[in-house]
């Protein structure tokens, strides 16, 4: 029974993580253009204005 003491919070936490991820994705516009995103993945040239996170880190250094 003591297992439940941490299993239930763990389940809630993981579920909450999923919810937070979804809300973040919604806020940050991941669902703005579902059709276009499929094509952007196939582009050969490096993205110019959508800097990936690593690029941001490099700039800060």
């Amino acid at each position, binding site marked *: *029974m003591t297992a*439940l003491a941490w299993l*239930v919070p763990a*389940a*809630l936490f993981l*579920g*909450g993580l*999923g*919810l937070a991820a*979804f*809300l973040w994705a*919604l*806020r*940050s*516009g*991941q669902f*703005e*253009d*579902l*059709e*276009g995103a*499929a*094509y*952007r993945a*196939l*582009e050969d040239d490096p993205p*110019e*204005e*959508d*800097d*990936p*996170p690593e690029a*941001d880190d490099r700039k800060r250094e």
Partner: protein
Amino acid sequence: MTVHASPGRFAKEAQGTHLAAGRSLLTLAVENMHCGGCMRSVERAALSVKGVETARASLAAKRVSVTYDPAVAGEADVVAALERAGFAAAPIEAAKRDRDTARQHYLLRRLAVAGFASMNIMLLSIAVWAGVASDMDPALAAMFRWISALIALPTVAYSGQPFFVSALGALKGRRLNMDVPISLAILLATAMSLYQTMVGSEQVYFDAAVSLLFFLLVGRFLDESLRVRARSEAQNLLSLQGGIATVVEADGTRRLVAAHALLPGDRLLVAPGERVSADGVVLSGKGDIDQSLITGETAPVAVAPGAEIYAGTLNLGQALEVQVTAADSATLLAEISRLMLAAEQGKARYRRLADRAAGIYAPAVHGLGLATFLGWMIAGASWQTALTYAIAVLIITCPCALALAVPAVQIAAASRLFRKGIMVKAADGLERIAESDMVVFDKTGTLTVGKPQLLDTDLIPDAVLASAASLAVASRHPYARAVVAAAERRLGKVVAVNNIEETAGQGLERRRDGKCERLGSAAWCGIKQAGEGSEVWYRVDGAEPVRFRFADRLRSDAAAVVAELKGRGYGVALLSGDREGVVESIAREIGIELRLADLKPADKIAWLEARAAEGCKVLMVGDGLNDAPALAAAHASISPASAADISQRAADFVFQGERLAPVLEAIAVAKRARSMAFQNFAVAFVYNIVCVPLAMAGYVTPLIAAIVMSTSSILVTANALRLAGRPPL
């Protein structure tokens, strides 16, 4: 600040919250953006403009969002850059755009929270139910109920908002809508469950209340996304038609301006083939104007300096300079749009199927709940027991099927029609078109293609047609194009030649081997006899002149569609502003007996109102500006994509292509959607018939309530989805 937007950053900027100081945001509708390559070229073209900092295209919305420095660049610069890259684009008003996205996100956030909460509560509840059968520690079961309560209370407060707000609004207006029983069931169930949890009882309905919220929000979200998609498509269309105008400044320089920003007194340059963006007076230049959007007449009208010219007309001749007399909301177009709005008031009285059902349903549900409570009180049960059973009745009868089924059916129907090139502009249009029992057509541009076609081609010798066509290639005039089209059909290819001179409003001329070859009006070719207007002459020096006659052409399947409609038992009528003779011959050709000619827009409305008074539900199919008020006044309306923008705004549906068959398709799918909505109502009804007596008798436990509700919701949604995947009707 350097703006190197990640998708996330940009979306926030697009919502207008995090826009850098001194930067403006512009959203443009872009036509012809269909693939990843186009998307990239659109973004590149926009970024090539000096002052533009970011550009992000959305393929799904067919729009591009641009942030720019208003001190360096303007709207028109971006539009011009896209035009050079081969994409027609036009700005979209910011207010409308933001409201739609905001509302959709509002619902989606609440949907996500409700989904998370319902899954977790269900997880706990299943353990409790299973534990009741085996031997669960009562203390543990109580703890699980408390955890459920902790999840459910904030969820109901947050995710329930859309329903509570709407129910409150309805009650303030002394009406009942679907959201009143929904809100009541959810609030009562939550409050009662909290009480039961406190006193340690087993009658706890948190799972039912929250999963109810989840399913209802799915329905609400589907409904909203259907509206948003239809609205954004319509906005794109309208913005693109408004377009960009070229203004000539006092010092002679030219400037591009969005059409809605024109002011009276501006001098406007209308290039050949361009639409006039405002009402005005011609200052210089002369030529032919296609006024079909205003008058419904296909024959072009000649204009000269001093002539009045209207927004929405098409310049067929040489460049015109126009002094703007009325722009934007003061144009004749806008005048007609006000007439249309007045006519639309009638349509606003239409009550949607789900609302009508709610009108009967809500009082019945409340009555049953109250009866259960009173019945058990009279039978001597405690008030807690009586209330618990009453809440079980409310939860069981909660109109999930009504609230979820109709939007699910409609979105399936709309996406099916969308694939066929039919755009659903009003969600309740599907319901209204399914009810119609009479179809009324306009003539020009609706039954006909709206473009003139060469008549009696057999009487014209090949050689004459070929040389006339080689002259005609040089002109944008609809008659010239009709000659070219006829020649291409008969001879294959038309050879383009040089040295052609066009005199606007007159005709074309070419000198070859000392001979003068002319194609144009009777006067232009030196012919005295007065023609009927729809004709063009061709003459080579010394030879006999040849006459070309034109008439508008029927859509290829017009007669078949009319026959099919009659076969299905619809009344069919033809209302036209054109002359009696023309209307009669067209009506006879496609088999319409009921026809009225010489009608003004107000006459059309009066006729429609007379039919409505007789109890007819009229589907109006029309395109011209003169039809717009009638489209708004009819019970349902369809308009071809070639129609005046104002007509498209008035119509419930817009169809693309040269065939009339989409009218049949729209009616068929709408009828199908309607019968599926009724099927879903029937499913809901059967559930209620079985479960309500059980609930009233007190046999419904929280477990049964949860199972019944989920299965009925899933069943109606699955039924609705059949419509999208079905083979052709």
